[in-house]
């Protein structure tokens, strides 16, 4: 039943974001695992479209915000405005009070603004002038970052990268998909045609069901083997944290659930592994991120327990 629904959503989104089915599946996994998504790619690839269509498909509120160097935390979270009629300060909610929030080019904002967003992501609440306001549920942040432009940007530190469950790249569409894009109507038009196929209640219920997916001892042993491996292997500068371990388990559970299982298999873990672990690991020698295929090759040294 779930598979059908899932395939339907994937088809819906893929009809707008052409030729990016794998990324769509990962984005949905991330979404149902209650995680946040970091998309690293060049402008004009379709990051915004992906976020928009996701929100629309799920029937969720959507806000987009372009991050710039002069952005202040108040611009994201909201601010108190003096109301002349009542003579009181009234909280004016910022764009973060939404369900799907697209933080475009997050690395352009100053660390102060970045951390304001990331705090909101972690705690799912905003504290402003001593008053705590919960964010809406589900709350899903898609942040994008341009990997090439370095001037005037503030690279996200590792500790903040860790807040994103997954990091994916969209990449250029293949020739066939691109021709379709060039031929077809604009994304906006296609987006308008998309029907909502899920409600807020349904989304929350799926997220709850993902939490209940069973992780057997054997599965957890494999997960722990992987974590231990990153901690002891000379390939990595620093191993995966327990938080990263939890992220892996959550993502694997979501992946398993979306594929119609109420238990997770080592294969599920292997599927999401490069996207969840990739931005959390750094190679010991070149101090750069590790290419995905290299990462998989390194991880293939860990045997699956029988």
């Amino acid at each position, binding site marked *: 039943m779930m598979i059908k629904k899932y395939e339907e959503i994937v088809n819906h989104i893929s009809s707008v974001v052409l030729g990016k089915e794998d990324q769509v599946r990962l984005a949905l996994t991330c979404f149902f695992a209650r995680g946040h998504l970091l998309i690293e790619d060049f402008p004009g690839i379709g990051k915004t479209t992906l976020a928009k269509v996701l929100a629309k498909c799920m029937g969720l509120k959507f806000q987009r915000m372009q991050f710039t160097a002069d952005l202040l935390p108040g611009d994201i979270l909201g601010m108190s405005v003096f109301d002349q009629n009542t003579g009181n300060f009234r909280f004016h909610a910022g764009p973060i009070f939404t369900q799907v929030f697209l933080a475009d080019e997050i690395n352009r904002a100053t660390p102060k603004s970045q951390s304001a967003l990331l705090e909101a992501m972690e705690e799912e609440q905003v504290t402003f002038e001593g008053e705590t306001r919960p964010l809406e549920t589900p709350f899903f942040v898609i942040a994008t970052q341009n990997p090439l432009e370095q001037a005037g940007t503030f690279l996200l530190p590792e500790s903040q990268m860790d807040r994103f469950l997954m990091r994916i790249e969209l990449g250029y569409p293949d020739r066939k998909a691109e021709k379709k894009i060039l031929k077809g109507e604009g994304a906006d038009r296609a987006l308008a045609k998309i029907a909502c196929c899920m409600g807020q209640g349904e989304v929350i219920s799926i997220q709850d069901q993902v939490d209940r997916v*069973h992780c057997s001892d054997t599965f957890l042993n494999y997960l722990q083997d992987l974590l231990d491996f990153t901690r002891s292997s000379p390939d990595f500068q620093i191993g995966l944290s327990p938080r990263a371990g939890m992220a892996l388990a959550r993502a694997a559970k979501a992946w398993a659930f979306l594929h119609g299982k109420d*238990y997770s*298999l080592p294969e599920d873990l*292997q599927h999401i592994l490069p996207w969840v672990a990739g931005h959390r690991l750094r190679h010991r020698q070149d101090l750069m991120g590790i290419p995905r295929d290299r990462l998989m090759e390194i991880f293939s040294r860990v045997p*699956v327990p*029988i």
Partner: protein
Amino acid sequence: MKKESARTVSIIGALVVAIAPHTPGLPLWINVWCIVMWGYMLVRLKTGWPLPATYIRYGLTFAGIFGLLLTYSVRIGADAFLGLLALMAAIKPFEMATHRHQMITVLLTYFIIITSLFRSESMFIVLYMFFSVLVTTMALVQVNAPGNLFRESFKLAARIFIQAFPLMVLLFLLFPRFPGSLFGIEDKTMGRTGFSDHLSLGGLVSLVRDQTPAFRVEFKGASPLADKLYWRGIVFQKFDGKTWTTQDQLAFNLSPLSFPGKYYNYTILLEPHNSPWLMALDLPIKGPSWAGITGEQVLKSRRPVKKRVRYMVSSFARDFFDEISLPGVAAGGGFPGGPSSVSDHMPGLISPEEMAAAIISTAGNKNPRARALAETLAGKTASVFEKIHLLLSYFKENEFVYSLDTPRTTRHPIDTFLFESKKGYCEHYASALGFMMNVLGVPARVVGGYLGGEYNPYSNYLTVRQSYAHVWVEIFDQKNGWVRVDPTMAVAPERIGINPDGSLASFSTSTTALSFSRKIKFALDAVNLRWKSWFTGYSYFEQKAFLEKLGLSEKWRGFVGISMVLAMLLLGILTGVAGFLFWLFQLKKDRPDPVEQAYLMFCCNLGKLGLRKRPDQGPMDFARDCGNKRPDLREKIMMITDHYVQLRFQKDCPETTLEDFKTCIKNLK
């Protein structure tokens, strides 16, 4: 593979080190056998050659035993046993795949190390054994903690070794020792050389060429002059014309009188020689408690000396004899018998003439020419010393030569010596003189022992070698008792103070004159002697003395012994119980998971079909792969994998699934 090879190398290394002391004693083919087997195991680590199949291993075992039977036939002794041990140790590495076999091999290695003591007990071999134990302990560490670096294993092994050391010392000192050997096992390889209870002309030659030490002496206080180092061993009191033999108690019971002379106290460390004679300086007065002094004034143990023994002796050496001023008559020995007539003190005893006749009674009419010569030369004088003088002068005047190269014995050996060859060594001169004196009616007996000693300036003791073996004569004189006469000295006076191997018998403590190699030799000998007297010589009596020094009486000793045994027993029981519990625990831990086993079998079966599972492959991916490659099996494989996933990854699974799973795997075959 890397761990495996490190393990194999360390175990084989330990075996090689343990067997090494045996190699000179083993037949050549067993040495070659060991090298080939171990070499193969080491080379196959690099080349990946296969292990020998079971039937080859059986074949090797039988071939080895067959070869052993051919080499030793029925002489099943320590040598054959060591050969078997080496053979088996050589092929054991072929079956060291499991931990259990590796442990057995390591324990076998420890056992082989102990057997080194069969070959030698010298300090060097014991030091080597310590090294060997260390190497084997390293192998033990490798077996139990694989992947350790060489240095880490060494550190751990050294730590274990050092921790065991105090316990070893304690057990060495306190573990109850028994008088005599445990279980009555005696080593037959020890103590073959030495004097036997008969002496025939030419019989000593083999001894004279033997450079091994016969005994070592350490003087307490004054030491005698070099020319007085006559070590008495056996007294031969009977002559049949060819061979001198011992005879019990044909002696005068003489009361000791006070003569001017010196007492010497010294300790002797005697190498085993399988007979009861104990060497002592002429003349022994007091010996150890387990030995007695016979009527011939010879120190004699109650049992044959089969182990190295250490004993203290007091000897008395007379300064001079009355009426003696003869060349060749060695003043300094002699019997402290009374000058008064024998019959005065001991009525009923035989006269000297009768005794002389008794000594050569069995000689019959042998050596007639020697008898005639004795009568012609000295038959007319009455004085004993005059007779001795006349006979010795005969040797000198007729150009007798000292030589080890003597003709074969004949029917009348003394005649042959006196009239034909005119050359011989101590035995010949002593026999001839002794025989002729008895013919003249003067009791004379032949004494076997050693002359001289090589002084070790580093440790203040004398080494007396087998080659220093010497024979001389004791002649009875009414006034002086038994007087030592060494006829060899009349012929070869250069032998005085010089040992047969050319070393000086002087007590010089100066080492400057010694050559470097001699210095090394003395130093090593000194160290080895300390070792022998303190470690390998530590037996029942030494332990008793040690415990008494600690204030532990005999009663205490028994108590200590019993409590030691009890403690060992308790320790043994505790170890056993702990081992049993550990085994149970291990059994529980190691009980293989049924799901895992069944799935491994499934993978193994598919592997035979060419469908191998990559270690990093999940079960579903593997099943899909297999299904693509073998569509005919897809259904079965998927079913098995479903069961497996159910058992392993799903939340609740019916109990019957395991059985179904197993049946499915069986059906796949």
